[in-house]
């Protein structure tokens, strides 16, 4: 039985809500927040229902013919659910946080309208049934995030916005060209487990390699693969909820998710390996992991340090995909969720440091554990998770990645992970040391504002999720359990 309405409903809970929010007057805070949170709650429920149905084996598809041979297709498979769950839950939490964060700010309807549009694009990416649909939502995501990056309106914000657009539209151009080329070669490129290309790799090996390069370069900009990562640290000028959204949920994850779709469901694992494309991709991921960590070591700006950490951590996902081993794939896919909840915790906590005490630099973190214990605790859980301390979520992903490295006969991966974890520790532990073990400055900066529940609760919840995802990793609906289910479909 094929269901149609559920994917459309999930899309509409943010796509349909965006124009409504855009039209609400700026001053009508209660109305806007009610609409926003109602939609976000409905979405969480619908996604939960969808996950349940997908696990039971129901097929979902909604189709709109756009041109002969070009259909807009929304579907839901296990991989979609992974990304949908991440975006639905984190959207809900980030919205609450953003309402508190932007209290008294300007252009809030514009902000929340584009925020919803962003999530709509993310959800569309998650549910795309073919490469054409994926491309459409991928580009919509680019356009919808631009107003968020420039939200502050300062000259610096506009400069960041220009750089962001230059990178992402450039990537979009490569992706578009690759997609059209593949369509010209293969007809409709439907996402199919184990690949959709059939006999083509034998007939056009060189062309397909070029197309792979174009596609990966296109999504690699958003996934911040070195050297396409330059936009990410610069766009840190955006407000904290936007950074959280860019890093944990929407933009970089859309890129990582694109890499998964291209390797798993367009080319297929075997073809990717047969064309000799897996190794270079893994190498690119390895370089990115090292380079991101190295750059993070030297940043004094807290958000920049977190940004370079994202560059590094997102490539764990790519590495898991590129190692062509089911065990590594489990680690990489689970990291899509794990990195999301860890990074959002870090950004929300960092936002609270900046809002509460005006602390934006690592060197100002002295004594934060005493000044803002809640936020510092959440930050600590996130940072330890990133380093890979058991039993937190990051440990689970690293464990599977390392085991996958052995499985793929690439023991170098263990060295890579060890080195990266050491560097993670080297750039996170000094922050924790300052926060917990150094005394606050003699004359601490006056408290800027009270951190209300809207700012305090979301990072606490996500910190709890980090712990839960690690402790309950073996439960059937945990991120790890779900990725095992996905990998059983991609590898036979």
């Amino acid at each position, binding site marked *: 039985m094929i269901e149609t309405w559920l994917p459309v409903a999930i899309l509409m809970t943010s796509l349909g809500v965006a124009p409504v929010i855009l039209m609400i007057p700026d001053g009508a805070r209660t109305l806007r927040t009610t609409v926003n949170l109602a939609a976000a709650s409905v979405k969480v429920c619908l996604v939960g229902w969808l996950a349940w149905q997908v696990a039971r084996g129901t097929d979902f598809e909604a189709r*709109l*013919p*756009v*041109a*002969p041979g*070009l259909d*807009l297709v929304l579907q839901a498979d296990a991989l979609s659910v992974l990304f949908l769950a991440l975006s639905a839950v984190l959207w809900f939490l980030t919205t609450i946080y953003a309402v508190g964060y932007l209290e008294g700010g*300007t*252009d809030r309807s*514009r902000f929340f309208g584009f925020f919803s549009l962003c999530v709509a694009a993310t959800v569309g990416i998650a549910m795309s049934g073919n490469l054409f649909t994926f*491309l*459409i939502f991928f*580009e*919509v995501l680019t*356009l919808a995030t*631009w*107003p968020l990056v*420039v*939200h*502050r*309106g*300062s000259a610096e*914000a*506009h400069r960041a*916005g*220009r750089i962001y*657009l230059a990178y992402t*539209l*450039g990537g*979009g*151009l490569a992706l*578009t*060209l690759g997609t*059209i*080329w593949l*369509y*010209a070669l293969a007809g409709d490129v439907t996402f199919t487990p184990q690949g959709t290309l059939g006999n083509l790799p034998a007939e056009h090996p060189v062309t397909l390699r070029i197309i792979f390069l174009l596609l990966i370069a296109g999504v690699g900009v958003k996934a911040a693969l070195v050297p396409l990562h330059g936009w990410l640290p610069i766009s840190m000028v955006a407000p904290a909820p936007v950074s959280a959204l860019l890093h944990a949920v929407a933009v970089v994850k859309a890129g990582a998710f694109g890499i998964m779709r291209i390797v798993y469901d367009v080319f297929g694992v075997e073809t990717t390996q047969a064309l000799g494309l897996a190794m270079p991709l893994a190498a690119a991921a390895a370089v990115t992991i090292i380079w991101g960590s190295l750059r993070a070591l030297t940043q004094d700006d807290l958000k920049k340090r977190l940004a370079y950490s994202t560059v590094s951590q997102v490539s764990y996902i790519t590495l898991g995909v590129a190692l062509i081993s089911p065990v590594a794939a489990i680690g990489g896919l689970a990291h899509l969720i794990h990195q999301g909840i860890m990074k959002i915790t870090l950004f929300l906590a960092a936002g609270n440091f900046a809002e509460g005490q005006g602390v934006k630099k690592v060197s100002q973190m002295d004594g934060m554990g005493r000044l803002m214990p809640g936020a510092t605790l959440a930050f600590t859980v996130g940072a330890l998770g990133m380093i890979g301390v058991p039993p937190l979520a990051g440990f689970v992903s690293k464990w599977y990645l390392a085991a996958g490295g052995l499985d793929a006969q690439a023991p170098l991966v263990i060295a890579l992970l060890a080195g990266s974890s050491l560097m993670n520790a080297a750039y996170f532990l000094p922050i924790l040391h300052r926060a917990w073990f150094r005394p606050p400055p003699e004359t601490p900066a006056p408290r800027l504002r009270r951190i209300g529940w809207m700012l305090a609760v979301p990072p606490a919840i996500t910190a709890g999720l980090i712990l839960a995802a690690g402790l309950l990793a073996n439960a059937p609906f945990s991120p790890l359990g779900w990725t095992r289910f996905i990998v059983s479909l991609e590898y036979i």
Partner: protein
Amino acid sequence: MTDTSLLVLLPFLAALAATIHARGAAGWGLAGTVASAGLAAHLALSVHASGPASIAIGGWAAPLGITLRADGLAALMIAMTALVGLGVCVQALAAWGLRPTAVEDPRRARMRMGFWPLWLSTLAALNGLYLSGDLFNLYVTFEILGLAAVGLTALSGTRRALRAAFDYLVAGLAGSLLLLLGVALAYAAAGRVDLGVLPLLADSAAGRIAIALIVSGVGLKAALFPLHFWMPAAHSSAAPAASAILSALVVKGALYLALRLLLEGGLVADALRWGLICLGAGGMAWGSVCALRADRLKLLVAYSTVAQIGLIMLAISVAGDPLTGTAWQAAALLMLSHALAKAAMFLAVGRIAEELGHDRISGLNRSDLRPGAAEFAFAIAAISLIGLPPTAGFVGKWVLIDGLIGQGAWPVVALVLTGTVLSVAYLSRVVSRCLRGGPHIAPGARRPPWRAGDVAAIGLAFTALFMGLLSAAPLALLNGPLLS
């Protein structure tokens, strides 16, 4: 199928009525436009359902009488004209009123009495152009179209507009003259003047001169680089509604003729192809560079038309044989998307300039004025012009690049992508200012009020935005058989 001739007849009669009964000009204009739009929709549906149709007016057959014919391409162009026309009419009605009021600004009355007859004549001429099957009829419709367009340019009555209108008149007459000479020579060389005459002309010297004359006449009318010199001034100095019509619809007439000629041109089309590709690429480059340097908003939008015409001409020149490929459909889709987006853009610019009191790009960041609906419409239209998904421009570029890859024409793919990058560059000059906020906005800044011009601009811009997802409809029309 007598309603096909009504598509030409009705707007003409309405134009006459609006001229004679000038007090009710707007009423006649509205009635004529709406009725014509209804006929256009009916034509599109019937062509889609039962294929191309042709009628001989008054029952006189081809050599003596005038034959009107409509296939999917013509029906699509007529529908496009109707759609844009409706949007522009909303703005014009709101700007200049439906009826004379007791105390009225004489300028407003003059605009109302001038605009509607001119627009209706333009509509009739365009419909006639799309329905014509031979070059002589086409020449006649071009002549009417050109005169009406000059009138629209001059309508605002400013010194700059009058100057531009005079240049337009001269260029238009030169174009008509070239076309007429070409048609006469073609008739002398081949003995016929239908659209399929081009392949017959390649053998004789007179025929080749005829081809050259026809192509340059069409190029001049279409503002194809480097024959675009008259166009930016004309489009940027007219009233908003008139600019929208000129830029979105009037140049499409000549582009449509170019597409028809090349579709049936056979070997001659092959010979012309690379030359036209060069001109198209030149137009894209030159239009973009001028748009990047333009200091006035309207001028930027007008130069963007030069660049977009270059792109469309590129698509037209690689069109190939309609029986074997679908690349030519890209040209039609790009024309459709450009018409919708450019009309939206000119109407939006009209509103922006009205609120600001000027249209200098450097002065767009006024701290006491928040961005309004018109800026939003401009941004949406820009997305369509750039060709980002999900707009009609995106599907047009998709079909184009798909066809180019099929032909292995990689240099042209590179040109199209370069043109896209350039369009991002010049349009983001304006769009980034539509997102101003924060420190650039004074605390008590006002937001521009909603006007009908905003509604029209947003309506057209959103049509262009979602037309991409609805491309199945125009493509279904284009997939039907073409008349030759």
